């Protein structure tokens, strides 16, 4: 029957505390991005488009919104008969008390029973907070071709930034021979994307051992991968080329949004053969008023623009009043900027009102300003 016998597990437990107030109420994977998406739409749509039917989402911190959001698997077409998105928070078990996940590997260990239900041959481990498009079916084909025990997706980063990443050193045939976490003197510029394919039988065995190891951090990068190397297992590096972004900070989240304004942006959300699916919110089409001025912008349905928008991204339901100016900024869903207000180099959080005539952000700030509280009008 289905040949793509691979189940995906998305690690979506990150608190994303460097996103400050944006993650006060939602987990990082549920943060809004690109006008109408949430970050987790990317790994989930990638799974759907890669023909993966069963996806487990490992959540932890304050995840009521994330849980409800991903549970509606139909958004990604993942609700056919033998398909589903399953939210997997820590559970109480017959032989173990309720406890948080101790690390990325522990999150999988605690859900061995879930995975066993589907008896997959391969398990794909993903992070829930990266923005990219990848065909995991191709990565699996490479994994099989390489006869690997595990395959890790890697991306070339500028050599000078390599010491910020987990770096994979490979031999001439694409086998990983060494893994260094944030090396001071990197030997290669192949950074791990935190995307792994494992043969399930092997991983299962390793996790059972790892669970009992008191010295382990129960982490893929720190424990499982080094152990595989120590055991002389075949680890393949799958080179990815294309857009990939970890939006860990307000600046990088803003930047990732700004990337969409380029006429030939690498992410290309308009590609009909690899759509990114998301929640479908009933909304009017965009209303562009008689006095509006729009220049380099990414605007979605439900927006009403009566003022000026320049070099900015407007999320669902954002409203820009007459005479208002939005420059180099991101307006998250439901933001309302009243008449004559000015927003510049700012990221305005969901549902925030900027009163008429108010000015937020500034053209020459080093960092992007996050506006997360109502701003009163000045008129």
């Amino acid at each position, binding site marked *: 029957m289905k040949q793509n016998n691979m189940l995906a597990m998305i690690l979506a437990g990150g608190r994303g505390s460097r996103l400050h107030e944006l993650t006060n109420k939602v987990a990082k994977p549920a943060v809004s991005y*690109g006008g109408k998406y949430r970050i987790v739409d990317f790994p989930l749509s990638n799974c759907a488009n890669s023909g993966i039917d069963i996806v487990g989402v490992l959540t932890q911190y304050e995840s009521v919104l994330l849980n409800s959001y991903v549970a509606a698997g139909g958004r990604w077409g993942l609700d056919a008969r033998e398909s589903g998105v399953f939210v997997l928070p820590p559970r109480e078990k017959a032989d173990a008390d309720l406890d948080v996940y101790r690390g990325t590997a522990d999150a999988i260990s605690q859900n061995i029973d879930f995975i066993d239900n589907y008896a997959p041959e391969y398990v794909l481990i993903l992070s829930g907070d990266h923005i990219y498009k990848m065909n995991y079916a191709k990565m699996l084909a490479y994994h099989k071709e390489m006869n690997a025990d595990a395959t890790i997706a890697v991306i070339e980063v500028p050599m000078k930034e390599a010491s910020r990443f987990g770096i994979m050193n490979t031999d001439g045939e694409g086998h990983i021979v060494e893994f260094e976490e944030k090396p001071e003197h990197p030997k290669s510029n192949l950074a791990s994307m935190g995307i792994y394919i494992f043969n399930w039988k092997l991983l299962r065995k390793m996790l059972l051992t790892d669970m009992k190891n008191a010295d382990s951090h129960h982490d893929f990068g720190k424990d499982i991968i080094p152990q595989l190397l120590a055991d002389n297992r075949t680890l393949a590096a799958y080179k990815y080329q294309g857009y990939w972004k970890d939006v860990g900070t307000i600046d990088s989240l803003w930047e990732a949004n700004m990337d969409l304004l380029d006429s030939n942006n690498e992410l290309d959300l308009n590609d009909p053969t690899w759509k990114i699916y998301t929640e*479908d919110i009933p909304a009017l089409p965009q209303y*562009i*008023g*008689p006095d509006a001025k729009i220049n*380099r912008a990414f*605007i*979605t*349905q439900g927006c009403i623009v009566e003022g000026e*928008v320049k070099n900015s991204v407007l999320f669902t339901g954002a409203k820009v009043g007459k005479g208002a100016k939005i420059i180099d900024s991101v307006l998250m869903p439901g933001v309302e900027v009243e008449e004559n207000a000015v927003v510049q180099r700012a990221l305005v959080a969901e549902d925030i009102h900027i009163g008429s005539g108010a000015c937020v952000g500034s053209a020459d700030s080093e960092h992007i300003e996050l506006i997360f509280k109502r701003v009163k009008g000045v008129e």
Partner: protein
Amino acid sequence: MANAFGIIASSGTHIKVEGLLDYRPIAAFSFLGRYRVIDFPISNMSNSDIDHIQVYIRRKPRSLVEHLGTGRHYNINSKKGRLQILFAQNSSENDVYNTDIAGYLENIEMIERVHQPYVIIAPSYMVYAANYDTLLQTHIDSGADITLLYHSVDNAKEAFLNCDILNLNKQKGVESIEKNRGSAKNRNIFMDTYIMKKDLFVELIHKAKKMSSMITLPQIVNASCSELDIRGVAHRGYFASITDFKSYFDANMSLIDLKNSLNLFNPEWPIYTRTNDSCPTQYFDNADVKNSVVSNGCLIEGTVENSVIGRGCQIKKGAVVKNCVILANSIIDEDVHVENQVIDKWAQITREREIVAEAGHPGYIRRDDIL
């Protein structure tokens, strides 16, 4: 969980929308960029807690069948509820046989098998918002046999010429239903919307059949005005009737005005549609867009004014689009100037530099056409 099931009728054979109708029934017409006309009656029903809806289709069913799916996107529970697509055979012998009544007769067991005691019948060529649950309660409380919905207009001389009108007495009793001949300004336009008991509906179908194979539902109701207690209820808010090409164009244009639009769209009464998973629209450096309604997935580099732009359209550099209704996936190439046009899906305007019709007489560009 309402006490009624819904019927969305296929539009009568007297309604002709040149061009667009060659490819799909009016129910499947694109409307205001992201909707189809049928989204309005179905959303009205779904919002009114009607979860069994029969949609009648006579011809060109493909796009409508695909758009409707199982009705999940209209918030209809697919187990308890049912969005049922029923087909009326299109007789090619003589169009006069293709009445609404013929369609109901062909599917009469499907009507008889429904367990709700009331039926609400709505047209698939009119755009309005209405709470059928409240109307049903009004109908039941009034004790009337049939309740008809109407909209009072003051432009019946020049508009709504293909619609029926209700002649009402002081008590809102319906004295007759007749064609609007454009002879008076103020008229009560019949919104082709009926509320009655299912049993009475079935009775009327059989009665009509006995009278003549050409008789329609409004005609048999009109013929019953003296025997039955038939009442009119006035509708307020936005109302448009798509009965010809001009009225289709005008209805779209009228909703570019946000004030009109808010008269139809209400966050408490969502109009659902099927998503296409398009990404947001990208406006480039030279885009100049004013007073327009734009759908997602577009790439806009040119000038757009006073227009409705469908999903996935491209308006290239130097192009000028004025007073147009552009349907999904069309391309207006560099430096092309289009004005007062309805441009059907997948059209590409590339070679012709100027396609301009005079105001009040919009032109039509065919689907998949390359100009």
